[in-house]
């Protein structure tokens, strides 16, 4: 892992990996969505509204994966002081928050025809909303610590680790508490879903995960370039002041 600590080496890899992830992800995700919309059958009880699953489940998975990315990068930052860890955490925040918001909105649009309501304050929905607020809080703290902490990133790293407690709560909420939300349909090694729904769903999850990875790499390149530009301008300004 420390082999990638060199930003120049990371940039060499990210330059070809980012467009590959983003391009493949867009093709796979839109093919899966088209399959879900026009080819996959309607469900016996839920009818056509089941087609929202091809967006809702990948968004939920990536909302949680984004925070696990922040937590993993925060751990790496605190323990090994990996120079790219804080940048990786920052890069996960916006796509994670966007997918969490998409999950909540598509869930609400699914809930209205399926449950007869846009929103219920049950364990799954509330813990997902808490995740969105955690993202907002993390982004605000990260921005504030850049100024106050001189780029140390210790406070957002600790927040990132503590906030990871919410991820298993989201996952097990439908098992622990009575919930309007259905229990998990896909668990490791088995699925309660028919192959007609499962195959396009897995394809959509793969496609959106690749898009997520592409966006994270693009954000990392952007943050790294901003830091390098800032450092260069500061060095030049110092040199000019000293020469004067």
């Amino acid at each position, binding site marked *: 892992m420390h082999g990638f600590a060199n930003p120049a080496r990371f940039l060499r890899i990210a330059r070809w990996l980012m467009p590959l992830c983003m391009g493949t992800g867009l093709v796979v995700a839109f093919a899966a*969505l088209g399959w879900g*919309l026009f080819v996959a059958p309607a469900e016996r009880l839920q009818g*056509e509204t089941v087609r929202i699953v091809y967006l809702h489940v990948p968004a939920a998975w990536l909302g949680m994966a984004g925070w696990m990315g922040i937590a993993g990068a925060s751990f790496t930052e605190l323990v090994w002081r990996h120079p790219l860890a804080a940048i990786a955490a920052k890069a996960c925040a916006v796509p994670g928050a966007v997918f969490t918001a998409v999950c909540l909105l598509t869930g609400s*649009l*699914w809930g209205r025809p399926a449950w007869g309501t846009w929103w219920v304050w049950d364990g799954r929905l509330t813990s997902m909303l808490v995740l969105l607020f955690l993202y907002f809080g993390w982004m605000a703290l990260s921005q504030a610590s850049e100024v106050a902490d001189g780029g140390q990133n210790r406070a957002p790293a600790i927040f990132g680790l503590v906030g990871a407690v919410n991820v298993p709560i989201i996952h097990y909420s439908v098992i622990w508490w009575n919930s309007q939300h259905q229990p998990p349909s896909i668990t490791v090694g088995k699925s309660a879903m028919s192959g007609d729904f499962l195959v396009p769903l897995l394809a959509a999850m793969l496609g959106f995960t690749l898009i997520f990875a592409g966006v994270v790499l*693009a954000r990392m390149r952007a943050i790294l370039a901003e830091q390098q530009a800032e450092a260069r301008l500061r060095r030049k300004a110092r040199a000019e002041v000293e020469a004067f």
Partner: protein
Amino acid sequence: MREAMDPWTFVVAAYVVGVGATLAMVVWALLSMRRAEKRRDSARNR
């Protein structure tokens, strides 16, 4: 009695929200990356 709802209205709205947000995020990520790298290169050449 529950009112009759057209399921496609909700499906289309969900796809507009999901696909729109994803595409907007991809475009924003690419443009901000290009802008930041251009700024770094111009700082290097200044």
